[in-house]
């Protein structure tokens, strides 16, 4: 019943007529499923030193001359299966990006809602901070946070907390989009009759914000969330590529690409290009979905 009603909505109808969006959705689902299920479907465990051996080092992908049926996408210099490394790497990248996006979402939407609802001094403060944050490019913010944390924390502690530091750094450079969008939409909703009525009835502001306004501004926030997920993945990859992200023993997609750079000049192209292509295809798909959602929630652009 629910499904039948869902199938009749405008969104599904538009979606079924948009081949790019369908393709993007399929690719995204396959990649995310592959990453989430990595521990169960990956041929080997790249973190388990006993599962690979140097004898299998630098084998090309299956379809190339000298490929080994055990290693679909070839192996790196240690004999690690590339497919497994990529799946585990994508898993790590997606975990960091989703958590960072989630933190940015909660932080940004709460601040934006409150700023838009109460206005006045709170609004002014939040928006000034947002302006400053916006002037600082995300990469610079993330690098600075990483640098500061290295200075404050002792080396061993920092190595343990690297995952948390990089996630927080990404989250702090992405919250502004959410805050600005939530604030702008809240401003519009606040003056509508249903909100005014709720205020008259003496409902608690928190209840009005969360139960009345939030459901009505979810559309644009969903678009931002999608686009920001792609940005978060790129940001994590860039930081890891620069070598300030994750340590080499738990490689994300960006780390894999950094390691692969050493093979740019040699014949072992798959070590570099497999994770690179994987990353680009993933981000392009998510961005295509974001574009589709933007058109869906903004009918004037159609």
């Amino acid at each position, binding site marked *: 019943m629910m499904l039948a009603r869902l199938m009749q909505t405008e969104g599904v109808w538009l979606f079924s007529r948009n081949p790019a969006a369908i393709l993007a959705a399929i690719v995204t689902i396959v990649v995310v499923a592959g990453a989430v299920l990595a521990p169960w479907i990956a041929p080997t465990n790249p973190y388990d030193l006993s599962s690979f051996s140097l004898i299998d080092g630098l084998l090309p992908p299956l379809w190339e001359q000298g490929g080994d049926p055990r290693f679909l996408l070839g192996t790196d210099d240690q004999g690690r299966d590339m497919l497994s490394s990529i799946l585990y790497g994508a898993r790590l990248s997606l975990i960091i990006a989703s958590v960072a996006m989630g933190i940015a979402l909660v932080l940004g939407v709460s601040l934006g809602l409150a700023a838009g609802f109460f206005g006045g001094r709170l609004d002014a403060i939040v928006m000034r901070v947002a302006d400053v944050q916006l002037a600082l*490019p995300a990469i610079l913010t993330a690098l600075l946070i990483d640098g500061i944390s290295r200075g404050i924390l002792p080396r061993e502690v920092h190595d343990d907390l690297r995952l948390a530091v990089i996630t927080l750094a990404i989250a702090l450079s992405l919250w502004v989009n959410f805050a600005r969008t939530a604030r702008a939409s809240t401003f519009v909703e606040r003056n509508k009759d249903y909100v005014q009525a709720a205020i008259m009835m003496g409902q608690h502001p928190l209840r009005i914000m969360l139960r009345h306004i939030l459901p009505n501004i979810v559309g644009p926030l969903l678009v931002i969330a999608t686009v920001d997920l792609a940005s978060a993945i790129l940001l994590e990859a860039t930081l890891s590529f620069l070598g300030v992200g994750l340590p080499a023993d738990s490689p994300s997609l960006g780390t894999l690409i950094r390691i692969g750079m050493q093979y740019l000049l040699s014949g072992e192209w798959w070590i570099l290009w497999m994770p690179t292509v994987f990353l680009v295809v993933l981000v392009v798909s998510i961005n295509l979905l974001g574009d589709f959602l933007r058109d869906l929630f903004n009918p004037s652009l159609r």
Partner: protein
Amino acid sequence: MVGFILKRLVQSVFVMLAVAFLAFSLFRFVGDPVSQMTGVETSLEDQARLREELGLNDPFALQFIRFAGDLVQGDFGYSFRTREPIGEMLLTRLPATLELGTVALLISLAVGIPAGIYTALRPRGLVSQSILIGTLIGVSIPTFVIGILLIFLFGVQLGWLPTYGRGDTVEIGWWRTSLLSVDGLRSLVLPALTLGLFQLTLTMRLVRAQMMEVMRTDHIRFAIARGVPWRRIRYRHALPNTMIPVVTIIGLQFGGVIAFSIVTESVFQWPGMGLLFLESIRFVDIPVMSVYLVVIAFFFVFINLLVDLIYLAIDPRLRVRESA
């Protein structure tokens, strides 16, 4: 008008003071300078004496004023890691980053503006559609991957261009330029393209949106109704109004150019300020980090001030409003 300029100047000074304060807090509280400078063998008395000599026991406000005063006089202190004066380190690396950033910005404007205008005027054409899909992919490919792709294509496969460093440089005073030698120019091509491509998509999208907006305004509709030829409408009526925000774009893109120059310099081992900043993070070289922050903020404030002044010069409406 003088009042407006003065107001902006005062604002800029306040922004710089805020950044300097941030940099000072970073310098003062993140990692103790004394423990960074001394080894394990240094006795407590020596440490205390050093602390006194460096003025670390003075009141906080006094220390900040001294810090800011030193900055204004161009005394940026010393790097923890190399013990060199930071001012000199930055000066030797500044030209590399400025040249890279300027050329990249020029590429992005020279290609992005015409492409933006074209796609705005013919939104449904095949060429426009391909350009738009191209920019979507361009936004999704991280800068470092674009760099790797260019290195692979032009450096490794075709062997046309160098992929590492600045090549031969010519010294003019303290400014070491790679613009005056063939090898230097060849070395500049790939990094500048890498940095420019990302900015290009941004420029194009902004110009396109602006052009489409201008084409919908009343004076254009009126011109159409009057029967003014299309060519004239597009290039005499619409285009000048589109070009004003382009000045803003340059201001906006500066931040992006600085941030992504860090990535580009890392891919191509381009010896600029971005690479220095990256090294200072890796080795927790706090003084270099904080000075980099101040210098970047200075450029940022300076360029935005310049943009506002240019605005005033090219947009007659602003002058009227300010004097009214």
